[in-house]
């Protein structure tokens, strides 16, 4: 599976889905005009990747803002991950948020409630 790398724009996050290394990353802000168009291809690739193999997977999500459509899209990305974890694949989702950013931290806690098989870690990033 090819690696997906999309540079960040002002309205969409940096995407680095390195399937071979089992490492996925979203970083930046996410409020594209059409979230379905942006996240649709990512979701399809992720599903295709999850269909075979059981290598461990880590998904880093480091968003400083996302709109409700993006939240929905994130949920859609998380669901197959949780299903894969249920089937035995080690899956870790690391929710990175800036120190003191309660909004993003709360959103992470909300997402965390959806996971029972995949590991969901809240990781506070201190300003460098």
């Amino acid at each position, binding site marked *: 599976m090819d690696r997906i790398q999309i540079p960040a724009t002002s309205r969409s996050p940096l995407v680095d889905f390195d399937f071979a290394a089992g490492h996925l990353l979203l970083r930046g802000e996410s409020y594209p005009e059409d979230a379905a168009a942006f996240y649709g291809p990512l979701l399809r690739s992720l599903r295709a990747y999850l269909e075979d193999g059981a290598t461990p997977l880590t998904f880093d999500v480091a968003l400083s803002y996302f709109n409700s459509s993006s939240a929905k899209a994130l949920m859609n990305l998380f669901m197959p991950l949780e299903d894969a974890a249920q089937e035995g694949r080690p899956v870790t989702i690391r929710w990175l948020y*800036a120190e003191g950013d309660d909004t993003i931290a709360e959103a992470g806690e909300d997402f965390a409630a959806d996971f029972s098989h995949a590991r969901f870690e809240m990781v506070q990033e201190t300003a460098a």
Partner: protein
Amino acid sequence: MSGESLAPAPLSRRGGSLRGAGPLRRGDTLADLGFTEVPTTQDGGADTMRPGALRGAARGRNLDGLAHALFLRLFPVIAAVVLATQVVIAWVNYADQIRLYGERAQMMADMTARALARPGWTHAHGPQLQALALDPAFRSAVLRDAAGAVVGRLGDEPRGRSFERIQVAAEIEAGPAAQPAGSLTLVLSAEALRANAEKQFVMVLAASLALMLAFGLTLRLAVRRHVLAPLARLLSAMGRVERKDWVTVDLAGSRRPSREIADISQAFNRMVEGLRSGDEARHLLAELERTHARLAEANGLVMESLGYARRIQQAVLPGPQALRGAGLEAAVLWEPLHVVGGDYFWIEEIDGLSVVVVADCTGHGVPGAFLTLIVATALDRILHDQGLRRPDAILAALDGVVRARLRQETKGQDGPGPGTGGSAGSDDGFDCGVCILDRATRSLHFAGAGLALTVVTETEVTRIKGRRHGLGYRRTGREEALAATILPLSDGQTFFLMTDGVSDQMGGASRRLLGHKGVAAILDRHRDLPLDGQVAALEAALAAHRGPEPRRDDMTLVAFRPRGR
């Protein structure tokens, strides 16, 4: 002779008269040469840089005429000088020959006289005189004695003009024995010499003429080839450039121009390139301006259309009279990101109850606005047709109606839904908060789906979170059950329902979202202001937090409290 050395000669002689041939300066050279200049422009050519000024000159008459006149003038002068020189040389030559001839004749006479000087020469002179006659130029010889009497004669008497003959005399000295004195007169013809001189003169004349002709032709040809032809091409190119036909001149090859003209041509080519790129830039700029105008027009139409849409959306929202309703004091902040938006609110008095609803639909702009209309219609039916009054029941009913409207009933359906181009199909919905304020029981019933109620009292700010339950979306099976919270009303309470666009304000020194706590702090700071003032202060504080950052979302806030305390 090369053109390089030839061409400048006649030109420099006229003191840069070449410029006079062109239209750039009205030189006096042509007038000097007897040419009357044809005005190239209507005003007599005073404005020589007018468009079209070059075309008259480019016909070529002036250039050719100048060259022609130059050669007509030059040729006789040079021919006369060369000819005179040759004639003088021939004359000197001729005179020399005459002198040499004379000396030779004298020597012949002297030798004959010496040979004759012996006794009895007056009788025996025949062989000597006949020897003289062997000279082809010989005409006559006369032998006289001392008394002057002719003793011998050979040849004819000299006739004709004196310059055609050479006459010399030699004395015969008296000898010892029977040798009387006498004289010999010898006449030689100079006709051969004259004929020779004439022939030489004719040859010199012919040679000079041939030379001059060759010189003139070569000169003219060289000037034509290396000056006039390149100039003519340059002028025709200038004419075409005037008509914005961006041609350059290539003077390389057989028609090699003189260096000055080559320099001018290069400068001309650079100028044309500059003009061409300038012209292209102008065209591009004009095209850009046209495109910009079209875009501005299109944008204007879209904005006009959006403005109209905003009026419609505002008409669906409660008007000012609803805000001044009987039981409720309320203030509203409704600010779509793009003229219209996905935020919706409703305030109404029904059966002694105050209903306050705030909804945040997915997306903003026109798509969000469409959803708000669906929500508004659904809410109207639920409140008035179905008569629901419990907030959690209202939310559940809204959820069902909107999902049905958007045909998003199927759980886990991933294929594109009908009528949607989205790759994941239609999966849209909204967050919503509903407050029912019952003054009779002095209680407030709140139910939220993804939307919280903020309560500001004199001592604290509390936030009652809604349930994690998106409305209208396809069901995920993970929704929390909707439930209502009942709050007893007490004095000093102010309630706020707001969409996440209010707290999701990117900005500040650390460039992060303001968050609920930030908003709560702002509300707490201004809690003693009238509601309108609180909303205005919040809006100002939000703008201050954003700074240069743009807003990310629609934002709506409804502040309300029971009236009449």
